[in-house]
């Protein structure tokens, strides 16, 4: 025994030495338009000014030592492969991929989201070892979820930033009640700009802001024929910020395009992941949350009991989810309403070499066999895309819970970001996630998930902003975003995609009539 060990020892030392000598590959992100210093893996959440991202560099230090060819380095943004928009150069300390306005021309589709972007890099060396790194780029600035924001950079000031307007009033869209012809509202706030002499246009009035940061107040009359109130600040260099505040007019609304048929709900809540060794840790409130939501949908939102499928704990195996997502979801026809809610865990695969993979975890998920025991996001997309016929589908995920130990991903978990991107290009589907990329779902003192708490309150009628006794998805999602953000002190901000919401198509679809 000892003899064998002696024989192996030098070998072991040799190999240990060989690996120890190799410098690890470090991957850095540079955003030259915004920051001078690079970001490495330990600073993965980056707040960027609200400006289009036109330049980006990714550096792989010590790539030459690991025989890393540029053809084996791939980049994704929000889950889309974008390696074809990077020039790659070899520099003294490694390899540098760079993107600029010219190289971006290869992809006419809109690659970057104005609000949040998850960037992933995966490189494979010639021995098959993988190197993964991700960052979240989040746009700074406080936004009211009910208003639409837009920033425009002047071509004459390419490094400019649009002026920032922080509104303290109104905080929600103003409402004209039935029979009310007009109303006077106060628009108050602070305008900040690095290029003073800002022309601040509030409706038809224009104010001038002379200093870098200045408060303003203006009374504005709103009338029934106005759909919105536009606030526009243009600085001395023609950088512009626009905020559109919708005006809610009650009484003479055109009928909204409601889903006219039956209502279906698939409600999943998984607290317990099985007793197998190495199973995911329990998530106490998920199953109870799902139960609460299913009950509320039935008692408060007019869903028939037969049309609600509730899958909890050991009833929510991979096969049961597949059947639920394919068979059950297929029941809802074009004009029906379908709500899919999942409370549980989504896992960003922590195993080295698999870091680009993400799964929804059913009961019985095993780390070593994720492919067959968990639901990859692509599976989820495949099942739903093949089964959903309904034009009014709302998919709600409360799955970004914190996990410790072996299951913890060594970086920001991108599950919320990827779930949001999966269905964002699908007509007639809305997605709401409990948080943004890298954020975890927080619990209230009683243990209930803050997100689901506000979701159920919203459905029960509190989200009905215009008091027309219909909670639209638009109202509900904005309500949940505002309340959860407020309750978490900004640590958890739900995110959503509502298709063509500016065109008012899906916005009016009712999730639930208020009581």
């Amino acid at each position, binding site marked *: 025994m000892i003899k064998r060990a002696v024989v192996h020892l030098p070998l072991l030392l040799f190999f240990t030495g060989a690996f120890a000598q190799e410098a690890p590959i470090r991957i850095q992100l540079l955003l030259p338009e915004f920051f001078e210093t690079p970001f490495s893996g330990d600073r993965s959440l980056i707040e960027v000014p609200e400006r289009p991202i036109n330049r980006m560099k990714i550096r792989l230090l010590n790539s030459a030592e690991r025989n890393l060819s540029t*053809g084996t380095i791939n980049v994704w943004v929000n889950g889309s492969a974008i390696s*074809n928009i990077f020039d*790659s150069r*070899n520099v003294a300390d490694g390899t540098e991929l760079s993107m600029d306005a010219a190289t971006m*021309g290869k992809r006419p589709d809109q690659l970057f989201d104005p609000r949040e972007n998850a960037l992933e890099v995966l490189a494979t060396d*010639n021995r098959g070892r993988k190197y993964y790194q991700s960052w979240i780029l989040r746009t700074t600035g406080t936004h009211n979820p009910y208003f639409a924001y837009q920033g425009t950079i002047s071509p004459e000031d390419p490094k400019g930033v649009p002026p920032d307007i922080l509104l303290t009033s109104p905080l929600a869209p103003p409402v004209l009640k039935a029979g009310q012809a007009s109303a006077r509202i106060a628009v108050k706030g602070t305008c900040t700009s690095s290029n003073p002499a800002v022309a601040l246009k509030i409706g038809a009035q224009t104010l001038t802001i002379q200093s870098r940061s200045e408060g303003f107040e203006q009374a504005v009359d709103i009338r029934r024929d106005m759909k919105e109130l536009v606030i526009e600040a243009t600085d001395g260099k023609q950088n512009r910020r626009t905020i559109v505040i919708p005006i809610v007019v009650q009484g003479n609304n055109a009928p909204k395009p409601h889903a006219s048929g039956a209502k279906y709900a698939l409600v999943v809540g998984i607290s317990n992941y099985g007793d197998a060794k190495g199973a995911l840790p329990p998530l106490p409130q998920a199953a109870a949350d799902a139960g609460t939501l299913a009950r509320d949908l039935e008692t408060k939102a007019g869903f028939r009991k037969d049309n609600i499928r509730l899958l909890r704990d050991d009833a929510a195996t991979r*096969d049961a989810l*597949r059947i639920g997502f394919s068979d059950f979801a*297929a029941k809802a026809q074009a004009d029906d309403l379908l709500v899919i809610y999942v409370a549980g865990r989504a896992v960003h695969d922590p195993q080295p070499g698999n870091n680009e993979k993400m799964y929804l975890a059913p009961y019985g998920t095993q780390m070593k066999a994720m*492919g067959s025991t968990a639901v990859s996001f692509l599976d989820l997309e495949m099942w739903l895309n093949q089964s959903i016929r309904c034009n009014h589908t709302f998919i709600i995920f409360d799955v970004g819970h914190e996990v410790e130990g072996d299951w913890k991903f060594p970086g920001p978990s991108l599950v919320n970001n990827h779930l949001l991107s999966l269905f964002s290009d699908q007509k007639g589907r809305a997605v709401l996630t409990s948080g943004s990329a890298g954020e975890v779902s927080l619990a209230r003192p009683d243990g209930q998930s803050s997100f689901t708490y506000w979701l159920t309150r919203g459905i029960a009628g509190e989200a009905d902003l215009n008091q027309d006794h219909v909670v639209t998805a638009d109202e509900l999602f904005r309500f949940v975003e505002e309340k959860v953000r407020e309750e978490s002190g900004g640590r958890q901000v739900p995110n959503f995609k509502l298709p063509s919401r500016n065109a008012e198509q899906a916005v009016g679809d009712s999730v639930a009539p208020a009581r």
Partner: protein
Amino acid sequence: MRFRSASLATLVVALSLPAFGQLGKIKDKISGKQPAEDPAKNQLRYEALKQYATDKYQKDLNFRDDVDQAYEEVMRQHSQRAYDRNTSVSSYIATVREDRWRIHENLYDNLVVQDHINRIGQKLVPPESERALAFKVIPDPTPLAETLSTGTVYVSTGLISIVDSESQLAYVLAHEMAHVMLDHWKERVILDAGQKVYADEQAAKQARFTFIAGLMGAGLGAATGLPGSGIGGRIISANQGSELGQSIGNAVGFFLYKPLIVNWDQVEEDAADDMAFKAVLNANYDVREVPTLYTTMLKVATRDARVGLGFLGSRRRVEQRMEKAKDLIAGAYKAEIDAKLKDGFLSSSAEHRNLMAELKRDNGIMAYYSDMFEMARKNLADAVAIRDNDPAAHYYYAKVLKLVGRTADDEKLARDEFYKAVKADTRDENFGSHLHLALMMARDRGADKNQITQELDAYVTDYAKLAVEDRIMRSFPPNLETIYEYMTLFGDSGWRPKPPDMRAIEAEYNLVNTAATTNAPPPLPPPSSAAGSKGTPASAAAPKGTTATPAKLPPIPVIVKKQ
């Protein structure tokens, strides 16, 4: 059936080609000839012969005339070869059962990739050079490079597809270019003629055979002809191969013109390496990637012997060349490399990566049909990783995974890829992905029958749709799919080609026909402005005494369908 005969033809071509010079060794064994002697010794003898021939070319005017004449013949043959390839370039959509793809013949029929590769090549030509060169891509999954005395450098899609960066590709092109710039074809002819004279002088025919066989066995790069054909044999046999290739006629595309695989000798290879090194460095590509290139290619060749060493020469030579490249990087060129590193070297442009997605897809498909599984899998995996919106790349990646996959993960990946192919297929052209997806779904426990029938239905419907559209689609250019990509790139993702107005065309033909039949002067003034103005010259040019047979539309290229 057609494919089988093509494969047989390929085998015949291949056997007649110098690449299969290894056959010589086997024959030697059978005939009891002496195998190779000490390689170093052989090399010395070979170089002595080369020196002899070169001296003779400079001093002996008669010899020089003979050589020049023979070289002219080589150039003529090469021009013919280039001409044949250039004038028979084509591509067409083919279907085999549920697969649908585009076959490329003779030259890779992708204008943008051809132009891109040529531009990389042109950047490498020394500015002071007066020679004009052209760099072209041939559709062949085997990694090959071929140089003609005309100044044409051909690289195969297979070679480009396994090269990991633009820098490494630049080196491959530069190396081939160097053979042209250094007049190695002429050197070949001098050597061939010199060898004959030398052998005469020795007046020992048997000795000559032994000598040649020895050179071949030594793997010095002279081993290119069949035994007994001498050094010149490499050229002659190569040309025989090409003629045979032509006579086989319209075999499946990428096998039609088998490249001339010429193994240059060590001195020539070294000289080409030197020149390539300088050229790559001058064009600001990273020469430090050269050893990586060799490593990658050796690795690929180890996995699949067919991938072979068409570009590299023998394995032992590759190791020498790799060492030499490392020496140059650490020694002679170190200062220059360090100076250039301050600004950085170009490794791959975004355009290169983007085009590689197309090329790797097409080569991956060719490799798939050639049962070169490793290459197919790697090419197609790369293609979908670069950009994930190409249905054909997803479809064939899934097919290769499904075919050679062994684990549950492979199967899962194959299924995911079939799904992605369905999803990305906005023009309903990859009907096979619906079929395969349905078959994979059918294996699930408690499979959803509705979804399976939906997918099967989509397969049949899309297949039929193609068949119906077929007649119209054949009139459009074969590179329609590339045009779709440009249309998407420039903003019109929903663009569909507009079929010509057949009634107007038929009216025009009828007009021509009527005029020709009656042999009457063209009507004046024309009865309708559009048809008349176009019809007039044609009818005037119609030959006298044309019969009453109606004028026919030109033949439409045929879509090959195999069941």
